[in-house]
């Protein structure tokens, strides 16, 4: 029969490369004679919403309409190095570089008093020999840990998350269904609540795959399940009801108080499911994925 269980998990995640590794981002903000602002920044849009984050930070800082801002983000000959779209570092690191570039440009723009449009502003700035192009830079502060003691300040900042998972476990088939997931995350100020919620839904769904479905099967180092017909990942039918809350504990070194969210979003789901399975059927699973056969075997061993 189907038995219901509830499980919790909490996590923390140090964002950025960490360990004193040079973690730098650069961005350029430029007012063009056509009255447009071009933000050149090496933000790879991997689906996380990075472009929107950079655009929003630029709009907020420059106090100009979104339509007047253009992002240049995909050509190494036209943008400076902003590091990897990885380590949950783009919002914090590259966002800070965009903020820096935009603040400097805004300062320059403010040196000229005009009520007219950006084209005129450009002309006046040029006439007064004021830079219409500014460079932004940010480097995260971390220190290398000692290999023997681990002492040091390896990451900054940290993101936190707690999830509650409600599952149903069929104790005859071993099948686990995830019914409902409630999340509370602290990623500082949320720049875009819609894309941030998308990260939680996507990350949690990836966590469901990690907990109960996915495994690369090897035979002497040779992958046996190379295709999606046998490497099973969650589909829309596996997605539970998600309720997401953001606890915006602002980080003073972040752009407008923001921290990273991309990776932490997938972390608490899998252990919360494992704890919920235990709550449902009194059987603890010590390894991922908690597949039907593993659960049935655990039930059998318990009943011995």
């Amino acid at each position, binding site marked *: 029969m189907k038995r219901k269980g509830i499980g*919790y*998990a909490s*996590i923390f*995640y*140090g964002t950025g*490369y960490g*360990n004193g590794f040079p973690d730098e981002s650069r961005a350029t903000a430029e007012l063009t004679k056509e009255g447009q602002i071009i933000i050149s920044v*090496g933000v*790879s849009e*991997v*689906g996380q919403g990075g*472009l*929107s984050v950079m655009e*929003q930070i630029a709009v*907020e800082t420059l106090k100009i309409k979104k339509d007047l801002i253009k992002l240049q983000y*995909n*050509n*190494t000959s036209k943008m400076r190095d902003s590091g*990897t779209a*990885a380590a949950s570092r783009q919002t914090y690191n590259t966002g800070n570089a965009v903020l820096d570039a935009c603040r400097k440009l805004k300062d320059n723009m403010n040196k000229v008093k005009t009520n007219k449009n950006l084209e005129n502003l450009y002309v006046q700035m040029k006439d007064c020999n004021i830079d219409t192009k500014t460079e932004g830079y940010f480097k995260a502060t971390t220190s290398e840990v000692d*290999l023997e*003691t*681990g*002492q*040091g300040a*390896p990451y900054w900042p*940290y993101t*936190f998350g*707690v999830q509650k998972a409600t599952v149903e476990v069929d104790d005859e088939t071993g099948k686990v269904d995830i019914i409902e997931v409630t999340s*509370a*995350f*602290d990623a500082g100020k949320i*720049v*875009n609540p819609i*894309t941030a919620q998308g990260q939680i839904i996507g990350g949690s769904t990836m966590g469901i*795959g*990690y907990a109960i479905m*996915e495994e*690369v099967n*090897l035979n*002497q*180092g*040779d992958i046996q399940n*190379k295709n999606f017909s046998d*490497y099973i990942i969650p589909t829309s039918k596996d997605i539970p009801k998600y309720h997401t*809350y953001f*606890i915006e*504990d602002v980080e*003073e070194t972040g752009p*407008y108080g923001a921290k990273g969210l991309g990776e932490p979003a*997938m972390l*608490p789901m*899998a*252990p919360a499911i494992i*704890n919920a399975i*235990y709550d449902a059927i009194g059987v*603890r699973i*010590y*390894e*991922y994925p908690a597949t039907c056969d593993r659960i049935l075997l655990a039930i059998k061993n318990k009943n011995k």
Partner: protein
Amino acid sequence: MHVKAVGEGFIRPDIYEKVQGKAKYPDDIEMEGMLYAGVKRSTIPYGRVLKTNIDEIRQMEGVICVIDYTMIPGAKCHGVILKDIPILVQDIVKRVGDCILLIVAKDKVSLKKALDQVEVEYDVYQGVFTIEDALKEGAPILGDKSNILYDIKVKTGDIEAGFKEADYIAENCYHTQMTDHAFLQTETAVAHYDDEGVLTVHVATQYPHYDREEVARCLNIQEDEVKIINETIGGAFGGREDINPQCHAALATFITKKPVKVVYSREESTISRSKRHPMEMFYKTGVKKDGKLCALKVRIYGDTGAYASWGMNVLRKAAIHATGPYVIPNVDIEAKAVYTNNPYCGAMRGFGAAQVPLAYESQMDILAEKLTMHPLKFRYMNAFDVGSQTATGQKLKSSIGIKKCIEKIADVNQMEL
């Protein structure tokens, strides 16, 4: 002018093209006179390439050229930290999927025929496929001088005194599996010379400037002679951090002077790319009757596979996050990244901090049950706060919202902490 943007649900600038199916992915690029390239990959996990029928393949119809490691003008290997992954192998193969020959053909059909006809003669070595075997005396050495790529310890307080204080102890072994990024868009790269003679590579990548660096190293040219265009990215999750088709496409264009496309099938995509580290985690956690954690001993072994990639950083991240978001005064953690002949492991969303929560969060529930305490309450009373010190001795200065997150879930539950 009042403009509010941060905190608002702006519509993403990339989304219109994506939902309308108009976004341009690397495989959407077609060019006149474009050639197709692909690599013959090793089918054995460990051994030496003795010979190939390269001359025979060169004579095949539709084959423009066949490139081996001797034809690489610059660096023969790439890697995010250690330069150890062969662009084309010299002789030693360390995993299934190592690249042996790069074939350039006039069309996809000729390329497939040529790849199917490649014969590789190997001296097959006995490989190692488990952490246990890799650490045995007399195991074949896959790394520099040993099979341990990285070894880190995190120690604070007095571990023995800590366990003496404990009223309850949980000791368990946990295992996480190897997983794949499973992004939808398989790897594709298109290389060509632009109008100004700059070697241009269209790809979907997490880090275009790194790709530029590796392509320039491989071709032994200056970085400003290379341009990376980052096209629409169909998922990444860490799987587009290491170099994959970039250097092959660039090399084929460099040699033929023609536009060249390299496109992976799903199977090749899966074989080629890094994976998430499987980990063995031994945990011993001690708690006092009052619910305060007092001691934690952890041993973590990560199977890093055949090449380094981000293995050091992943195991470091696992060690540093092994406590969970909790104050524990006495800690003894050690984490090792171990080479095997399995697919190499590297970056994947969570990066070492995704594996350890299985262990630390299971331990928390096991101990909460022994204490007959609600699992949320037990977490709450041990959670970090501003001013707390982590196991690495880092003082947490600001924005430590874990307690507020637990409070929110308790609030949803309508329970008191």
